[in-house]
C-alpha cells in the first residue's frame, strides 16, 4: 500500500534538515486544523467546561445571574460537589427520572439503528441492480432526507393524530386504531416509526456507496466457485461493506442516542414515557419552572460519558474483529 505517503521522504537527510522540514509540514497542518479546533473549542469545549462546573452546583433559574429590567442580580448558587450525580443515579426517585428513561433510550437506539440498517441495506441492494428507473427510485427514496425534519414530523403528527390518515386506513381495514400520540407504548412505537422513516435514506445512500465500491471480480469469482446468491451475500457483500457499515452504524448510534428533534417535535413536553435522556434533560433545563440548570447539565455529562465509553469499546471491538478476520 502507499505508505511512502505525504512526502515522508525516506531519503537520507541531515537531522537539522529533517527537523526543519517536519516543522514546516506540521506548521501547515496545525494552521489548517486550527479553525476547526478554535470553533469547537469555543463553542463546544468551553460550554462543556462550564457545564461541568454547573453540575457541581445547585444552579437553577432562581439563583443564577440574571437581569430583570435594569436590575442585575448576581448568581447565588453554591458549590455542592457530586450531589447532583448521586441524586440522579441513586436518589429517591432515580428510577422514575433516570433509569426508566435510560432503558428506553437504549431500546430506542437499538431498535432504530437496527431498522435503519436492515431497511437501508435491503433498499441499497435492490437499487444496486440493473433495474429500469432506478434513478427515479433513488430520488424518491432519498426524499425523506431532503425535507427538513420539522416539516416531516409535523406531517407525521397530522397523520398519526386522532382522526389522521393512518387510523382511517387501519379502521378501513378493520384493524385496531391506537391513539398513537397519547398512549405511552404507542407513543414509543410512533417515535420509532418516524425516526426510522427519517433515518433510512442516509443508511441507504451510504450503503449503496459501499456496495458500488465492491469489485465485480469478487462476485464473478464467487460465482465461478458455484456460490449461491445467499452465500455471495454472506461472503462477498457483507465483508465488502465492513468499513462502511462500522462507520455508519457508529454514527447512527451516536445520532439516534442524541436524537432531539423528532421526539421533541412529535410530543413537545408531553409524553413523559417517550422522552429519551436528551429530551428529558432539555425538559429539566428549559421546559419547567424553575429551570434546573445543574441537573440538566449533569444529564449532559452522563450522556456524553455513556457515549464515550460505548465508542471506545466499539472501536476496540472493531479493531479486534478486523485483526481476527485478516
Amino acid at each position: 500500500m502507499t505508505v511512502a505517503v505525504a512526502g515522508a521522504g525516506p531519503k537520507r537527510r541531515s537531522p537539522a534538515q529533517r527537523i526543519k522540514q517536519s516543522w514546516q509540514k506540521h506548521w501547515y497542518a496545525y494552521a489548517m486544523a486550527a479553525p476547526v479546533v478554535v470553533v469547537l473549542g469555543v463553542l463546544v469545549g468551553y460550554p462543556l467546561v462550564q457545564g461541568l462546573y454547573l453540575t457541581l452546583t445547585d444552579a437553577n433559574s432562581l439563583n443564577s445571574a440574571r437581569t430583570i429590567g435594569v436590575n442585575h442580580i448576581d448568581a447565588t448558587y453554591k458549590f455542592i460537589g457530586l450531589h447532583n450525580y448521586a441524586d440522579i443515579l441513586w436518589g429517591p426517585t432515580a428510577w422514575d427520572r433516570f433509569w426508566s428513561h435510560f432503558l428506553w433510550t437504549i431500546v430506542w437506539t437499538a431498535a432504530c439503528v437496527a431498522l435503519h440498517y436492515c431497511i437501508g441495506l435491503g433498499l441499497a441492494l435492490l437499487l444496486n441492480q440493473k433495474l429500469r428507473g432506478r434513478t427515479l427510485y433513488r430520488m424518491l427514496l432519498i426524499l425523506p432526507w431532503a425535507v427538513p425534519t420539522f416539516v416531516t414530523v409535523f406531517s407525521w403528527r397530522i397523520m398519526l393524530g386522532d382522526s389522521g390518515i393512518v387510523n382511517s386506513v387501519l379502521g378501513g381495514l378493520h384493524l385496531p386504531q391506537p391513539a398513537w400520540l397519547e398512549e405511552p407504548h404507542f407513543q414509543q412505537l410512533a417515535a420509532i416509526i418516524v425516526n426510522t422513516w427519517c433515518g433510512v435514506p442516509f443508511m441507504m445512500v451510504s450503503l449503496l456507496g459501499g456496495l458500488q465500491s465492491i469489485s465485480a471480480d469478487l462476485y464473478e469469482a464467487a460465482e465461478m466457485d458455484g456460490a449461491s446468491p445467499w452465500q455471495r451475500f454472506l461472503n462477498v457483500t457483507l465483508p465488502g461493506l465492513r468499513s462502511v457499515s462500522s462507520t455508519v452504524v457508529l454514527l447512527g448510534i451516536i445520532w439516534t442516542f442524541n436524537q432531539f428533534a423528532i421526539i421533541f417535535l412529535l410530543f413537545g413536553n408531553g409524553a413523559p414515557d417517550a422522552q429519551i435522556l436528551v429530551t428529558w434533560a432539555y425538559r429539566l433545563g428549559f421546559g419547567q419552572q424553575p429551570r434546573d440548570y445543574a441537573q440538566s447539565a449533569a444529564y449532559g455529562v452522563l450522556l456524553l460519558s455513556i457515549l464515550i465509553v460505548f465508542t471506545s469499546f466499539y472501536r476496540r471491538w472493531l479493531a479486534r474483529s478486523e485483526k481476527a478476520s485478516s
Partner: protein
Amino acid sequence: MTTQTTLTTATTPAEQTPPPVRRPARTVRRDRPSRRATVLSHTALSIASLIALFPIAWLAFLSLGPDKSDYLHPGRIWSKVSFSNYSFVLEHTRFFTWLGNTALIAVATSVIGVFMAATAGYAVSRMRFPGHKKLMWLLLVTQMFPVAVLMVPMYVILADLGLIDTFGALILVYCSTAVPYCAWMLKGYFDTIPYEIDEAGRVDGLSPFGTFWRLILPLARPGLAVAGFYTCLTAWGEVAFASTFMLDDSKYTLAVGLSSFVSEHDAQWNYMAATAVLIAIPVSVIFYLVQKHLVTGLTAGGTKG
C-alpha cells in the same frame, strides 16, 4: 440489456461528467435477474418509494384545504381545493424575509463549514503531525455532544460575544455541529485521492496549502458537494437553536417562522402545511442538483473512518 442501460442513463439529469465509478462493475451474467426477481424488486421499491413519498405528498394535499380544521376531514378538501393558504403565507407573513435569512445562513454555513472541514480533513488525511489521531477522536466526540444540553452555556457565550440575535451566531453554531462530520467524511474522501498528486504538486514548487487549493480541492468536488449538501440541510432545517437564539421576528429562519403558526392556543395547520411545502421545494431542487454526486461522494468518502 442495452436499451435498459440507455434508459437508465437517460433519466439521470444531464450527466456531463463521465459516468462515475458505479457503472463499470456489475457484469452481465450476475445481473440478468429472472423475471420474477425483477417484478419483486420493482414491487418492493415501489412500496418503499410510496412510503417515503407519502407523508410529504399528504402534507402537500392538506395544504390545499383553505380552512384551518380541514386537516381533520381530508375527504372534504377535494370539493374546495384552493391555493389561498399559499397566497396568505406569501402575502401576509414575513415568508420572504425568513426565506432570505434561511438561505443566507444555510449558504454561509455551507461555504464556511465545508472550507473548514476540508482544510482539517486534508491535514488529517495527508499530514502525519503529532496529534492527528487525537484530532479525529475529538471530532468524533463532538458528534456525541447532546447539543440540547449545551444550549444554555452556548447562549451565554454568544451573548458575551454580542452575537445573540445575529446570523453570525447561528452560522457559528451550525458550523460547530456540521464540521466534525464533514471533516470525517472529507478525510475519507481525500484518502482516496492518490498521494502522487500531492507529490507532483510539491515537485512543481507548490506549498502544502497550494497543493490543497489548486490540485486537491478541484478533484474532491463530489465529496465537497456532499459535505456542502449535508451542511446546507442541517442549517436549513434546524429548529432548536434558531428559536432560542433569534429573538426578533425579522431574523427568524423558516423553521422558526413555521413553528410560529402552531402555538399552544391557535394551530393554523393550513398555513403550516403550505409553508412546509414552500420550504421543501428549494431543498428538493438543490437536492436534485447534487444527487448525482451524492452517491459517488459518499462512496469514496463518507464512510471510511
